[in-house]
């Protein structure tokens, strides 16, 4: 456990001494801010419209702003994750520092967990920026905080699962760019998998729909904590990390 923390700290440091962290944060701040602005603008115009029509129905902040925002953020995450994970192992393999890690008295799994956890913390820091937008809602209105919490938990779980896959892909190559592009392709595939369910009802389509990481996030965005989705994400995380450890092992047998 101590070793996991040592590795994790080292990874976090190298995120924050390089411009990657700040670049990603800036990118995310801009784009999530834009989505927040749009959602709020729609909310406000709708509110005024309905008042003019004499229907003073109170509108739900969570439903009108938080939920679409969370859905958008979950998709933006697909673009951020490859950039976070691509260097994790590819860089160590390229520069030869993997030999230092692999010949130190630590277990492979400790290295993997440390790196994955650092990536998760990095992702959480990026997501944290969107909380600034949401805090405005608390200043001017009274949104329900519990669905927001569940939504962010969902974002972290979805992120964790894609980060685990990205970590795995990073162990397969010594080229960061290849790792990044491949991770991006996989993330994109996992996102669009459920589109087949729109026209196809066969079992294979259902399975593909089930594999889509974004489908499982919808319940979280609604503020519902469904054990089925939590288990899906957790098992994907385990699967990704398991693949990573296998890949590291095979690295030793082949190299």
């Amino acid at each position, binding site marked *: 456990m101590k070793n996991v923390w040592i590795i994790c700290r080292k990874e976090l440091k190298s995120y924050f001494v390089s411009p990657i962290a700040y670049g990603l944060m800036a990118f995310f701040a801009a784009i999530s801010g834009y989505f927040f602005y749009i959602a709020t603008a729609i909310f406000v115009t709708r509110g005024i419209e309905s008042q003019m029509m004499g229907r003073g129905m109170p509108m739900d902040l969570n439903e009108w702003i938080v939920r679409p925002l969370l859905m958008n953020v979950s998709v933006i995450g697909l673009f951020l994750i490859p950039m976070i994970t691509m260097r994790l192992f590819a860089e160590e393999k390229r520069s030869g520092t993997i030999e230092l890690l692999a010949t130190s008295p630590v277990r492979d799994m400790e290295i993997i967990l440390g790196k994955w956890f650092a990536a998760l913390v990095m992702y959480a820091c990026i997501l944290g920026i969107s909380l600034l937008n949401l805090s405005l809602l608390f200043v001017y209105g009274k949104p329900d905080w519990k669905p927001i919490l569940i939504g962010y938990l969902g974002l972290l779980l979805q992120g964790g699962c894609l980060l685990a896959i990205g970590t795995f892909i990073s162990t397969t190559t010594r080229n960061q760019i290849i790792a990044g592009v491949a991770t991006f392709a996989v993330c994109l595939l996992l996102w669009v998998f459920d589109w087949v369910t729109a026209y196809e009802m066969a079992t294979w389509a259902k399975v593909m729909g089930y594999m889509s990481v974004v489908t499982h996030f919808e319940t979280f965005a609604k503020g519902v904590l469904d054990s089925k989705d939590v288990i899906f994400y957790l098992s994907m995380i385990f699967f990704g990390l398991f693949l990573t450890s296998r890949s590291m092992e095979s690295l030793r047998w082949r*190299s």
Partner: protein
Amino acid sequence: MIKVEGLTKRYARTVAVDDISFEIAKGQIVGFLGPNGAGKTTTMRVLTCFLPPSAGTAKVAGFDVLKNPIEVKRRIGYLPETPPVYPEMEVDEYLTFVGRLKGIGKGELPKRISEVCERCAIGDVRKRLVGKLSKGYRQRVGLAQAIMHNPDVLILDEPTAGLDPKQIIETRELIKGLAGSHTIILSTHILPEVEQTCEQVIIIAKGRLVATDSVSNLTNRLRGSETVAVEVEARDGVLDPVAVRQRLEKVPGVSRVLVKDAHDKRQGFEVESLKGCSVRPELARAVVEAGWNLNELRPMALSLEEIFLQLTSPEQEAAAGGAK
């Protein structure tokens, strides 16, 4: 300290290391010698648990690299060919990370880092980024990393590669200074390095073990023929090299006489004789009896360079096998 038995490492298509066995006692400096691609790095990687062996066993301090990798890694400090440094870290930061990774407690870490920095002469760059250091400094930081946890065994893969001559000497001195408390394996393809720093040599070529012995034994053992340098001077008048040569060739046991460089009245020869028969007294008598002065009579040792070439060049392999 280190025991390797029947070690074999196969990659997809090639056999990198083929059935190597050797043993290294505690506190020795061993030179691991071989041409490029001989399997030096692979063997070292097996010993450091970076690669698993395809067959055979390797044990460090009694622990098997496959069964007890963590225990082995605790006892080994490893400097790969390219120092495994993170360019974005400061030297201090890097050594702290390595120290923690190797299991040094937070309390004793600062003291240990100062010790190691002093030892490796990197005290003046502790606050600099590793990426901005020169190759020599980076190499020393790599060495500092390897001795951080004061390991029993140090494995250094070409520690002087790419350094300038002054740095090479400094690094060699540093390695010599580490001997005694550590068992050191050092791979290289530079021969003088082995002659200067090591007590024991392991020579491999094409994945096979060619020879393992102490530097002095190896030199002796490989002398299939003994060579004696002789310098003869005419007592008066001019020396006729041909006459001297003919006279020397008549000495029993002498197989060949080479005429070397001449300095007016003096003339050098190299006399080769069969191994085992000492011809030196006979040579001396022959020269003196013929009325010449004997200026020099000196047995010539084969340099490690010659041995190495003999052992590793293909046509000599059979002969070397015989010498074994």
